[in-house]
């Protein structure tokens, strides 16, 4: 029992509810939202040190032991993700202070933002597949409101698509859970793992596994990403940045969790399928990123490429590949938030997202330009920035697993990503400066701080990779050996 485990879920929900009561007091809401993200970070750092010394931490709610009660399980993998989530969301909040506007602030922007974090953290920490569904819903319901908050025409038309696609996938999720429950009689991840190992992952079980894969692919944007570029470019910058950084990652987390802990017996079927989807995602996403001449579109297609790349490492199902996926997942959360904030700032300054209408911005905003350059290099995995290590490990893992084509496509699409992002850099920052400070649509006042923090983090993650190596290794060890997780959750009740 460790009550620290529940804190990442209840801190944002308590703060959010207090904000709903004090709706008119914007200053208080800003203060509480920053305070709660910092509090989550601190409690998660404590949690990580405890996991590091004592192994996986669990909490059985109300003292009802697993597999009967609801358990919360924090292993190194989920704790690392929660830490990155809270740092990224802090930066997006700081950015929102100066960009989101009074209207949205007065209409529950901050509480919704915190409920979104509640759902994301809950998904990372739950030890029970039905609770995963509930936390997904908490996250999705907040994202429905955030995507349509403000009610501009493009937001409303995109939110209809977004809501429909997510309702369908939630429905399929529930059906898949029902099938799984009918076959195994349990919903607890650790218990599921034991039961599936006992029954054997025959044809029907693998079919259910593929059903789960489809559901999570819809959420993660793995191959089924047709809804993603539209929905992620509709809301304001701070919201689309947090979407790009977190929402697809929760889907990826669910895929990794389910396919390393429960359905890991038939990797030649399920994991190969993930690999094929990942390859198609990378190729299609990269083609989209190269083809468009619109900042928002290029960035959203880069989200898609990132998803494919992370899951290529998962598909290899080797220690190297998993290590790479984890490094790249952490890197991707930071750098996607960063690049979306940068892109949003450019649009905020110039009033347009069309590349051909912008040029020579570096003369007016050298800091912005150079940070964009660093982010672009980091995104495409140039050493010594944070994307490099993940790329190396994932490529190594896919080669080791014999999926030469998968690693090859990964490297090839990295080049396309580099081209697409350099296209933005060259068009926006190089060339003749036809904009003057008076003609700009907005200022960078207050917007540079969160961007600066994220840039420093992406550099630090690259240079200080050795520092987090120990923790990532521990997380990967837990993923590759389901018995550690099972032992931590069920303890002596293994024989049931």
């Amino acid at each position: 029992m460790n009550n620290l485990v529940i804190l990442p879920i209840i801190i944002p929900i308590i703060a959010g509810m207090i904000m709903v009561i004090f709706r008119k007091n914007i200053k208080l809401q800003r203060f509480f939202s920053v305070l709660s993200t910092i509090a989550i970070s601190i409690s998660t750092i404590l949690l990580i040190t405890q996991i590091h010394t004592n192994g996986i931490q669990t909490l059985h709610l109300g003292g009802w032991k697993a597999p009967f009660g609801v358990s919360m399980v924090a292993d190194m993998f989920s704790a690392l993700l929660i830490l990155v989530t809270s740092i990224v969301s802090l930066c997006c909040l700081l950015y929102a202070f100066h960009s989101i506007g009074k209207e949205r602030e007065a209409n529950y922007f901050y509480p919704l933002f915190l409920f979104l974090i509640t759902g994301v953290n809950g998904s990372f920490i739950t030890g029970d597949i039905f609770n995963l569904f509930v936390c997904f819903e908490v996250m999705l319901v907040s994202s429905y409101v955030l995507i349509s908050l403000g009610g501009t025409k493009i937001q409303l038309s995109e939110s209809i698509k977004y809501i429909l696609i997510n309702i369908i996938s939630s429905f399929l999720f529930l059906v898949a859970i029902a099938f799984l429950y009918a076959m195994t009689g349990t919903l607890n991840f650790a218990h599921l793992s034991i039961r599936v190992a006992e029954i054997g992952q025959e044809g029907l079980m693998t079919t259910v596994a593929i059903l789960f894969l489809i559901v999570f692919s819809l959420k993660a944007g793995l191959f089924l990403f047709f809804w993603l570029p539209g929905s992620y470019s509709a809301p304001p910058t701070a919201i689309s940045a947090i979407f790009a950084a977190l929402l697809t990652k929760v889907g990826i987390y669910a895929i990794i969790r389910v396919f390393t802990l429960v359905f890991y017996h038939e990797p030649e079927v399920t994991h190969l399928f993930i690999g094929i989807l990942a390859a198609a995602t990378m190729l299609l996403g990269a083609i989209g990123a190269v083809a468009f001449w619109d900042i928002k579109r290029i960035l959203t297609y880069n989200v898609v490429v990132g998803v494919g790349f992370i899951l290529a490492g998962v598909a290899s199902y080797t220690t190297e590949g998993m290590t790479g996926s984890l490094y790249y997942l952490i890197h991707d959360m930071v750098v996607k938030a960063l690049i979306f904030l940068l892109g949003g700032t450019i649009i905020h300054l110039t009033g347009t997202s069309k590349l051909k209408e912008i040029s020579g911005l570096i003369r007016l905003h050298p800091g912005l330009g150079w940070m964009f350059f660093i982010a672009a290099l980091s995104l495409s995995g140039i050493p010594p920035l944070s994307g490099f290590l993940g790329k190396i490990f994932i490529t190594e893992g896919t080669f080791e697993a014999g999926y030469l084509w998968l690693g090859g496509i990964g490297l090839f699409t990295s080049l396309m990503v580099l081209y697409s992002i350099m296209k933005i850099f060259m068009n926006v920052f190089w060339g003749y400066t036809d904009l003057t400070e008076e003609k700009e649509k907005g200022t960078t006042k207050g917007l540079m701080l969160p961007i600066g923090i994220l840039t420093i983090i992406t550099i630090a993650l690259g240079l200080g990779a050795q520092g987090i190596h120990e923790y990532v290794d521990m997380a990967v060890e837990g993923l590759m050996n389901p018995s550690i997780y099972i032992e931590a959750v069920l303890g002596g009740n293994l024989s049931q």
Partner: protein
Amino acid sequence: MKKPNDVIIRSVTKVAVVIIFTFAINLFISGHHFPGGGFIGGLVFASGLILMFLTFDMETVRHNIPVDFKVVAAVGVLIAVLTGVGAMVLDAPFLSQSFGYFELPIFGKTELATAVIFDVGVALAVIGTSMTIIMSIGDDR
């Protein structure tokens, strides 16, 4: 415009609402050991409120019950979560419940449980949420 003749519904509502509220409280209390509880009690309570909104116009009821139901929902969730936090303060797992038997003046030997406080939170959250939904659909401003 001719005023609609709604004498019957007005008279019935005045009696029925009291019965519905009593029934809601009964459901809420019996929920600890028998079917019922905060969720269903809250829903029945909300249905009583809706009947009042239907019978008398929205302005009148709002004037007499000046509460923001969004705040009611938030307070409810806060109560429910904070009972869980209370367990954490006493070094028990989050959401742990406890109960005991007490001698009360009128009721005699009574079982008091902390789960009831949690249920009050649930009831308030349900009332707040369902009223917010109904009122935002029904409100045409």
